[in-house]
């Protein structure tokens, strides 16, 4: 059994959980919701083991000195989906809003599918620039932040659907898909809670990145596209935080800012590497 096979299993697990969560929206069966949640936990547990196994494998390749498996695009995408589950399960433990799963699991599933089907999973030892503990701190904090934003984005989409439907059929209580969702107030609160977790983590991610750059190159900030995009993301979520406490900006506009913020996050993570030039090496 190698880590690649386990990751395939994880992908299947997340796929099934996602389908069941969507089934839950349609059927409102609490059995299905429980099953979906159990599968999500199971997938997360297997993924945790698989990441550990890959870590072990980095020591086994010829000439490999071993490294935390966070150093190339494949490893980072896998880690991203792991962090999405981590943040989602934490929020599930606390708030038990099962319908949220249908809007968050797709992100984790898509990430795993992409990693398993399209990305190069070769283990190659680290080039000098990446041989630093800062890499580990930087990647972990950034991706935990990104994952919280993914959850917030899913919740914001739910929020927009919810208030869209409620405005249309103003007095009759919304049924079906929308009826099972938490109230707009709870969704708004969840959105904020997720960003409340994500924002300090993103700040830490930017700071550890700056500290690393300073340690490796002697400049903590050089306006390279990746750095700049992470700052753009940070600006957007700072705007979100202030929008919530400003009259006229709360609710809908805040939800839209959260979605725009996640789009910018994804661009920062992937778009910059695939489309723009810069120092960060995941793209290659």
């Amino acid at each position, binding site marked *: 059994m190698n880590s690649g096979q386990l990751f395939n299993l994880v992908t299947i697990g997340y796929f099934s959980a996602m389908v069941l969560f969507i089934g839950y929206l349609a059927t409102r069966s609490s059995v299905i919701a429980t099953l979906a949640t159990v599968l999500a936990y199971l997938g997360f547990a297997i993924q945790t083991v698989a990441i550990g196994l890959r870590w072990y494998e980095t020591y086994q390749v010829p000439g490999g000195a071993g490294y935390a498996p966070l150093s190339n695009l494949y490893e980072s995408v896998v880690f991203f989906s792991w962090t999405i589950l981590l943040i989602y399960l934490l929020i599930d433990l606390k708030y038990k809003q099962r319908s949220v799963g249908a809007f968050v699991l797709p992100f984790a599933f898509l990430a795993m599918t992409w990693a398993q089907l399209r990305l190069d999973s070769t283990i190659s030892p680290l080039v000098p620039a990446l041989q630093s503990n800062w890499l580990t701190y930087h990647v972990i904090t950034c991706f935990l932040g990104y994952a919280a934003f993914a959850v917030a984005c899913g919740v914001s989409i739910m929020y927009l659907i919810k208030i869209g439907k409620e405005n249309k059929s103003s007095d009759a209580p919304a049924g079906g898909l929308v009826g099972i969702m938490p109230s707009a107030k709870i969704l708004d609160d969840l959105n904020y809670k997720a960003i409340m977790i994500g924002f300090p983590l993103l700040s830490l991610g930017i700071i550890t990145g700056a500290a690393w750059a300073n340690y490796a190159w002697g400049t903590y900030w050089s306006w390279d596209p990746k750095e700049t995009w992470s700052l753009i993301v940070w600006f957007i979520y700072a*705007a979100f935080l202030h929008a919530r406490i400003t009259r006229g900006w709360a609710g809908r506009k805040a939800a839209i800012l959260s979605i725009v913020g996640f789009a910018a996050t994804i661009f920062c993570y992937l778009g910059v590497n695939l489309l723009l030039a810069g120092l960060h090496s995941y793209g290659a």
Partner: protein
Amino acid sequence: MRAKQRGFLNSAWDFFCSLKLTIFSLIALAVTSIIGTVIQQNLSRQEYLRVFSEKTYRTLDQLQFFDMYHSWWFIGLLVLFCINLICCSIKRFPRVWRMVHNPMLVPSEQVLKTFSNVDEQLVAGEIKGLTQRMQGFLGNQFSAPQVTEQDGSVYLYAEKSKYARFGVYITHLSILIIFLGAIIGNVYGFKGFVNIPEGGETNKIWLRNSQASLPLDFTLRCEDFSVSFYGNSQRPKEYRSVLTVIDQGQTMIDHRPTIVNDPLSYKGLTFYQSSYGAAGDEVVSIKVKLRGEDKVDAFSLQRGQMVDLPNGDRLRLADFTPTFRNFGPAARIDVLPHSGEARAVTVFKNFPDFDNERGGAYIFTMINFDQRYYTGLQVTKDPGVWVVWLGCALMVIGCLVAFFMSHRRLWVVLSGQDGKVGVRLVGSAHRNQPAFELYFDELKNKFREELSDS
């Protein structure tokens, strides 16, 4: 006129204090920052003209899009952002300070009505005794209260995490501190680089932005440079310079290995391993043996160098390459006999028997070759960097306090009502209301229990 002026000043002040301006400037900064990630910054004119027409180039240049993070309008936005931050804090901070240092010990009826977490019990007994009970109750359940008596009523006030109110201000201050650190670095620091050949030394460096050199008041020597690879692959494993610092004739740092991610610091300057290159030709060591004889001669040659062999023939290193196709290091040697025609011979380091098998009069083998490198070091001095780190630490702490701590306040008000005592419990939290409501509901039950067995 006066009033009008004041009216204008007031609205300007309100403008600079408004949160709408904050959202505007944050979004404006986010949107404009994109420009510099799409247009590569600080290239030369020729490089831009390869992408843009002359006219577009001129327009973009006028808008300072080619160095936009230092353009007047981007800096202007940052300044606006800071002014907004400062004004907003000046406006709000005193109120928060007062709230923390002069708590509302005796809230008016009106204020009490604004809080949604309330419970009221009517119990038999004396105010004095009940006050003591409630004092104990709050002390046990929450925190020790302050007791105030006014107009026959008794007010108990208890609070927790009052400093949580400063979290937001710490966060905002941290941003200004980071800016300050960046300014200090820009004014008093510099960035430069220096190349030192192996065995060489320097006491000056080159500045990045000005082509000028800067003398050092010490000497930096590069003892050795090496690059290593993983196995037989081309994937680099380590770039390593061994550096020595000599200050006023004294060796201050001796043979310090300096690698990427492990710079060397001395006297406020930091030297980072950043590049390397070949310094001059390789030196190739060749062994020469005359077929049938035992004697072997060895020579170290650079490209083009000629040596005499004992029998009067001569040989010259015509060419050398560290990688000849897949065969590794290879050298071409010209043999120039004292009579007759010159002949060219190729030798490979990885195939020592190759020349022997050719069966010529001489047998050549390449023992080794040595490449002399220079190491390229990035040099920086940034006295502002610790200010920046201080700001970063404050930002994280401030965010955590702002998000995860909440100033919680409880009042118990006892007042006589028709021979009985009305006991009111009122609570408020400055954030995370849902969690506080849960807490308050539990407290309410204990509060009722406490009063029921009196």
